[in-house]
């Protein structure tokens, strides 16, 4: 074993790869998320004004519009880790460090996007309270009002984590296994992401699938645990997909 291959060197390189990929995925996603949030705020304000002009405001507007946050994160999950893969390996990073960096970035993205979303809901809650409008939201496991800042933050963070990881796993699954097998691999990923969403209640499952989860009886801790379990399952699939993934010839991102 040469000096260059000492365990210390290997550890340092793994850390370098993990932090570089996590940083790039987090800030790369936030570069686009900035525009996304500007659009979401403008749309929420415009819809609120329109409803108030021609009808009565009967509940939270932002709850529905901000429900698109997980989908935004799913799309970014499809784009970002797959885009970073050839760059990362060409730069001497391991797939292992890219996986760790992706997981770290996912958690940071989920928490930060959840925080911004919860803050937006809190602002809406304050405005609606001042105007004496009802701030009711779709039923969810961890919150029941647009002013429930911490419940919304936790719920949306967990949801965002599941969707971003799911997007990454689907994209890399198709890259690795092609259209047929990639679709087969996609099914358990989607099932896990939706399962996590059902456990949390709210989001896309609150209207169509809300009856399945019995959210009125599921304790908050169980919601969180089931959501984390589902995201852990997606992370396992992502790890299996990525750990020895062969890169295609002449791949440019």
């Amino acid at each position, binding site marked *: 074993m040469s000096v260059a*291959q000492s365990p210390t060197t290997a550890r340092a390189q793994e850390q370098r790869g993990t932090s570089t990929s996590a940083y790039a995925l987090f800030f790369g996603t936030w570069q686009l998320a900035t525009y996304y949030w500007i659009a979401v705020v403008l749309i929420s304000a415009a819809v609120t004004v329109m409803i108030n002009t021609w009808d009565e405001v009967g509940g939270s507007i932002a709850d529905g519009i901000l429900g698109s946050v997980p989908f935004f994160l799913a799309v970014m999950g499809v784009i970002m880790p797959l885009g970073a893969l050839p*760059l990362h390996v060409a730069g001497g990073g391991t797939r292992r460090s890219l996986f760790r960096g992706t997981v770290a970035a996912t958690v940071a993205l989920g928490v930060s996007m959840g925080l911004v979303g919860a803050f937006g809901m809190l602002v809406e809650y304050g405005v609606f309270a001042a105007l004496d409008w009802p701030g009711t939201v779709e039923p969810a496991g961890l919150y029941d009002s647009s002013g429930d800042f911490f419940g919304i933050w936790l719920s949306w963070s967990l949801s965002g984590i599941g969707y971003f990881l799911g997007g990454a796993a689907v994209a890399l699954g198709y890259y690795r296994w092609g259209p047929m097998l990639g679709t087969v691999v996609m099914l358990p990923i989607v099932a896990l992401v939706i399962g996590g969403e059902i456990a949390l209640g709210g989001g896309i499952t609150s209207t169509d699938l809300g009856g399945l989860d019995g959210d009125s009886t599921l304790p908050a801790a169980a919601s969180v645990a089931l959501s984390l379990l589902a995201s852990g399952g997606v992370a396992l699939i992502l790890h299996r997909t990525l750990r020895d993934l062969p890169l295609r010839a002449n791949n440019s991102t």
Partner: protein
Amino acid sequence: MTTPYGAELSDVTVRYGRGRDAALDGASFTVRPGTITGLLGRNGAGKSTALALLASFRRPTSGTVRVDGADPFENAAVMAGVQLVRESGDVVGDSPVNDTIGYYSGVRPLWDADYAKALLDQFGIDPRKTPDALSRGKQSALGCIIGLASRAPLTIFDESYLGMDAPSRYAFYDALLEDYTQHPRTIIVSSHLIDEVERLFEDVIVLHRGRTVVSETADALRDRAVSLVGPTSAVSKLADGRHTLATRSLGGTTQLTLEGALDPEDVARARDAGVEVGRVSVQDLFIHLTQEPETLKEDAR
């Protein structure tokens, strides 16, 4: 200080799918540490596949790959010392060049940021532009800059400068040699522009149909044949009984490429007969070594 990496492929086979021809079919070669090695081969010979194995882009179907004495695949310490620059460039196409440079500087332990900046200036690349917005030549130059600034103990250029115009290519060759002298490392250059780059090569590996045809020093390869140019009758007399690799005639003058070296007596006889004795270019030998039987038959007609 960089310690150059050696590399070795032993009986390596790579198949991209069941029923498909092997991209590498039992290929074996050694890259000596601290040399510039030319990896040559016709299209589909398996060059890019071999280089992808060295850079841990994939595993072989069978056989052994060693870089600095170890299996490079997912070996963090080894991968940190190997930089593969592909023709397409592994960059973030729709973000500023600065983002790509920033990523490499984050991952690469020996990255030289000042050198990268100087090269960007030299090749006229605006780091605020996206790689997708650059001309093909500048995209190629960006790849070459990444390879040079990586200071990786094993740096591989896989057809990475084909898009550059001639002045840019020669500027790259000069930069490569200068940096190689100042920061010795192992460099592998894969190229179809053999005439341009053969002056750089210390060792040459030739792949053909997934197998290794040549793996030796450039001088040993050049000594495999000799070129005779002169009056047709004198050249023919000298070639009598020897294996001729190639013949070109114009008027009364003929240029022959003969296999093997001439002994001093033959050299003296050649000079007396007005025949010029010279070395054969790597490109001419490469063409001979990788010529298909059908082409040889057509040449003979």
